[in-house]
Every structure is written in structure tokens, then in C-alpha cells.
């Protein structure tokens, strides 16, 4: 029993870093960035290749971050400098990454079973794999949130936040919105790269197909986080992404545990997200305040 919950917790923490990345593009920049599906595999691919070549898994993690930054940079340049719509820019980079990932890995699947990973030092201290993932994933999420909280308080960070809200105002302040968009996409994809790296090392392999559906997982986690845990101050918003990601995994574990055929899992995921999205409406109904809401996803 514990194993299932701890498993869900560890998986949720690993995917939470990506969820924060999705949040940065989707909510802060107001861009639906499809690069994510390619970047998560890229992070995994780079790390797996580095480890399989016998180098340190930490170097693998570091290079995954660099690779993520570059992927974000490409999407950003396509969007801002070439004027390609954001959605299409992301899709183009995602498709390109498919070939690049294959080049990086040289084959479709690299096994990391019984190889050193970033979790190995913790496991050497006597922790089992799941706990090692929880500790490291938790530390990583905490570090990411703290750094981002600090960064988005700085002048350039605030400019990125303002870009999504009101680009004209930002330009009026004499800030180049191209730069802030590119920077936001780079940070987001670096986070996704970190997630990919940590996930591959936790599941013991990198697979060319592993990014499939990542964007849906990211959005579902984000929305669950926002609806259940609110969106008060900036720090809590990041925290709610982590909690949303963990909740998503607990829901899946619960569904599996209750014996629902896993064939129906995707349908269930969709229903969960619809439910989470419609919660504000339902609340309004209950409060008798039936008025149309602005925005939505």
C-alpha cells in the first residue's frame, strides 16, 4: 500500500518540475508551448547517453538542462525572429527534436538498469530507490521553486511576467518583448529537460516515445493544482503546481488500485481534467451566482 502512494509521490515530484515549466509558458507567457513533448525526451536522451558512455549522471543532468535551454531558444527564435505562430514554433521544434533525440541516443531505447544514476549516492546511504527519488525529487522541486520565486521578483523576471499579461505595456517601458519571450521559453524547457533526465534515471530507461502525451499530463497537473490549491501569491502558485502533479499521480494510482481497467485510464484522465476545470462553475452554481466567467483554458 505504502509502496503505491510513495510511488505516486515520487512520480509526482519528478513530473512537477515539468509542470512548473508548462505553467511558465502557459500561464505566465500565455503561450501553448508544444516543444515540451520533445524536450522531455531530449532531457532523458542526453542523460541516458552520457550515463551509458560511463560519465557521471550529474554531468548528464547538467547537459539535459543545457539541451532544454537550447530547445527553448530554438522555439523562441522561430516565434519571435521568424514570426512563426507560437503553437506552430513549438510543434516544429518538437518534430525536429524527434530526429535529434534519435541521433543523441543512436537507438530507440537506452537501458539504465543497474547503472549509476543521480539516485545512487542516496541509495548507498541505505535508502531504497523510491525514497531516494522522493528525497532528490523533493529537493529539486524545492530548489527550482526557490530560484524561480527569486528570479521572477527581479527586474527581468518581472518583465517576463508582464510580457504575458500586457506586452504593449512592457514595450512601452522600453523592454524588448522578444527577449523576455525567448528567456521564458528557455527557462521552461530547461525545467522540462530536468524532469526528463530525472524520470529516465528513475524508470531506468530512456525511450524515444516517452514524451508522447507529456503536454497533456503537464496541463492536467497544472489545472488540478490551480483548482484544488488556488492561485494566491506567486510562491504558492509554484507550490500548487507540485501538489497538482502529485495529486494527478495519486488519482492514477487510486484508479489502478481500485481495479478500473487501465484501458480506460485516458478517458478517466480526460474526465478528471474536465471536472477540475468546471469546479469554479460548479461553485458558482452552488453559490447562486450564475454569471459567465471570463477566460478559461
Amino acid at each position, binding site marked *: 500500500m*505504502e509502496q503505491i502512494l510513495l510511488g505516486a509521490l515520487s*512520480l509526482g515530484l519528478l513530473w512537477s518540475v515539468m509542470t512548473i515549466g508548462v505553467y511558465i509558458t502557459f500561464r505566465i507567457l500565455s503561450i501553448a508551448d508544444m516543444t515540451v513533448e520533445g524536450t522531455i525526451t531530449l532531457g532523458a536522451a542526453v542523460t541516458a547517453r552520457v550515463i551509458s558512455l560511463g560519465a557521471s549522471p550529474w554531468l548528464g543532468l547538467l547537459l539535459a538542462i543545457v539541451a532544454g535551454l537550447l530547445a527553448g531558444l530554438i522555439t523562441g527564435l522561430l516565434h519571435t525572429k521568424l514570426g512563426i505562430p507560437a503553437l506552430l514554433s513549438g510543434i516544429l521544434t518538437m518534430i525536429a527534436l524527434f530526429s535529434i533525440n534519435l541521433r543523441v541516443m543512436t537507438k*530507440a531505447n537506452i537501458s539504465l538498469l543497474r547503472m549509476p544514476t543521480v539516485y545512487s549516492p542516496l541509495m548507498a546511504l541505505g535508502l531504497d530507490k523510491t525514497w531516494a527519488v522522493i528525497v532528490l525529487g523533493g529537493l529539486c522541486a524545492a530548489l527550482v521553486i526557490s530560484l524561480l520565486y527569486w528570479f521572477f521578483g527581479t527586474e527581468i523576471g518581472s518583465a517576463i511576467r508582464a510580457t504575458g499579461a500586457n506586452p504593449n505595456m512592457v514595450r512601452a517601458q522600453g523592454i524588448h518583448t522578444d527577449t523576455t519571450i525567448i528567456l521564458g521559453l528557455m527557462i521552461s524547457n530547461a525545467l522540462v529537460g530536468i524532469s526528463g533526465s530525472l524520470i529516465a534515471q528513475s524508470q*531506468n*530507461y530512456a525511450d524515444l*516515445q516517452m514524451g508522447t502525451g507529456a503536454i497533456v499530463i503537464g496541463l492536467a497537473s497544472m489545472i488540478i493544482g490551480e483548482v484544488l490549491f488556488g492561485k494566491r501569491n506567486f510562491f504558492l502558485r509554484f507550490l500548487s503546481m507540485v501538489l497538482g502533479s502529485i495529486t494527478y499521480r495519486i488519482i492514477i494510482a487510486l484508479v*489502478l488500485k481500485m481495479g478500473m481497467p*487501465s484501458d480506460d485510464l485516458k478517458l478517466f484522465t480526460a474526465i478528471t481534467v474536465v471536472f477540475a476545470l468546471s469546479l469554479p462553475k460548479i461553485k458558482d452554481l452552488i453559490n447562486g451566482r450564475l454569471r459567465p466567467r471570463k477566460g478559461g483554458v
Partner: protein
Amino acid sequence: MNTLRKSIALILALTLSLTVFSVFAERDKPLIGIIQIVDHVALDAARQGFVDALAENGYKDGESVTLDYRNAQGSPDVLSSIADHFVAEKADLVLAIATPSAQTMAGKTDSIPILGTAITDYVSARLAQSDDKPGYNVTGTTDMNPIKEQIELIRRFLPEAKTIGLLYTASEDNSVLQAQIARDVIEGMGMAYTEVTVHNSNDVQQATQSIMDKCDAIYIPTDNVFASAMPVVYEVAIQNQKPVFCGEAGMTMGGGLATLGVNYYNLGHQTGLMALKVLAGEAVADMPIERQTDFDYTVNKTFCDALGIAIPEDLVPYAKEMGEN
């Protein structure tokens, strides 16, 4: 902060309900978990063979054994949750169908015996130290294709064939490995090859079209993308009057001309017989990885007729119309 507190309470409630469920998990018969990455004809057949082999030997699901079948619907991240589930349930044995399933499961446990099937190369997937002596908690059956015999089969139908076109998915490890072997075999037999690869099922039609006028016959190894896209290949091949040979029977009846090869039902059945030994207490680490020995011939009569190709006499009994079982 009120919502946050409520939400935490909600998570705690979920947790508690999970715990309550687990109290009833006491059991008196062995539990066999089945973890499968995705639905597709070959993998489903292997699973059915496994289940039937157990049933024929006194392990009927629900009576003397509990089979817990979980499918990740193609999401690797769900595999991880399924593996956690089996570890938590302390399964007595896990059948892992296809490589990612086995890798995920092996990453979660060193002690629960794992039998793999529909896995081509255990050693390169780091699941085993060697085929003869796996050494860890994983053994099973390999679906490594008799590629040499299959290419020879092309020659039996088309003695004049000079160039073989290879079609496969570049992102599938098993396919790439088989294509490598096929290239060597083809050259060894004094023929030439040409190849086109795809990334997903959307590329299949164009890829198939583009290879048509560059070869005398097409060879497709066992490949997940092509396994589900054979009707597309069939249509293009009939239009261009080019024979297609596949690595597997299901693909052949879905739109190929002929093959000999791994029968996934039988492979799963063979794995089921291995499971009996494991349940009897044999150590997985010492059980060699098994390969299929008696291959099945499959001849698609509809395809042969459409192209006016004569079926060699000894293979006539294997000829079937498409859509026939």
C-alpha cells in the same frame, strides 16, 4: 489558506481510502501480475497464450490463481504506477510484455520473478547478463525473428529477386536491430537492398509508395507501427504489384504475402510453461532465455492471387484468404 487545508484533507482522505482497500487484499492463491505497454495484435496474442498455458496446467484465473492484467495504453509513466502496484501487492510472478514493461518492472524489484515475452534482446536491454544464464530476476522468451529463413522464403517465391526494399520504424529498437541483420543476410545471399524508414503511422503510406519502384520485393521486420498499418501497405503494394514479406504472421494476414515466423500466441504459451516452473520454485536467474523453435508458415492467398504469384507446392496447405481465421 482554507482551500489549501481542505485540499490536504482531500488527499489524506484519498490516502486513507487506499489503505482501507489494501486491508482486504489478503489472498490464498498465487497472484500473477501482467504488465503490458500497449494494445496490439501480437502482444495481445502473447498474453492470451500465456493465460491459456496456465489454464491448461491447472492454474485457472480466479480459481487456483489470480491474474491481474494491467495495460499502460502506451504511456511509459503509467508503467511505473503499474509496477508499484504489483510490488505493493507482492505479486508472486510478473509477466512483462515488451521491453519497456520489463525494464520498468525490473527497476522496481530485485526479488519478484519477472518473465518477459515479446522482447527481442534481453542483454542489450540490460535485463539479463546472458541468454544462457540471466543472473538477475528476469528471464523469458525472445521474439527474435528468424530473419535469414524469412529472406530465403522471399527467394522461394521470387527466385529472380535482385533488390529487397526494407521498411521499418527508425525509432523502434527491435526493428533497427532486425534491419541490420536483414541487410547482412541480403548481401550474404548476393542481393542488394534499399531502405526507407518511418517515425509513426502517418508516414507509412508515403514511405511505402516511395520504395515501390526501387525494389523487387519488400521486407518489413516485426515492427509495432507497421503491425497496425499493414492495410495501408497492402493497398499501395497491390496498386504497384509488388510483393510484401513481413516478419510476423499477423502482419502477413493484415496485408503481406508470406512469412515464417514467431507465432506470438505460441511464444506466450511457451512463457506460460516457464511460469509453471517458476511457481514450482525454480530460480529465474538460472533459467535460460528461450527462443521459439518450430516456426509457423503463413501464406496470404489473396495477395498471391492478386499478383499472380504461384505458391510453392509444400506451402499450399498454409495458404489462407485474408479475413479467414
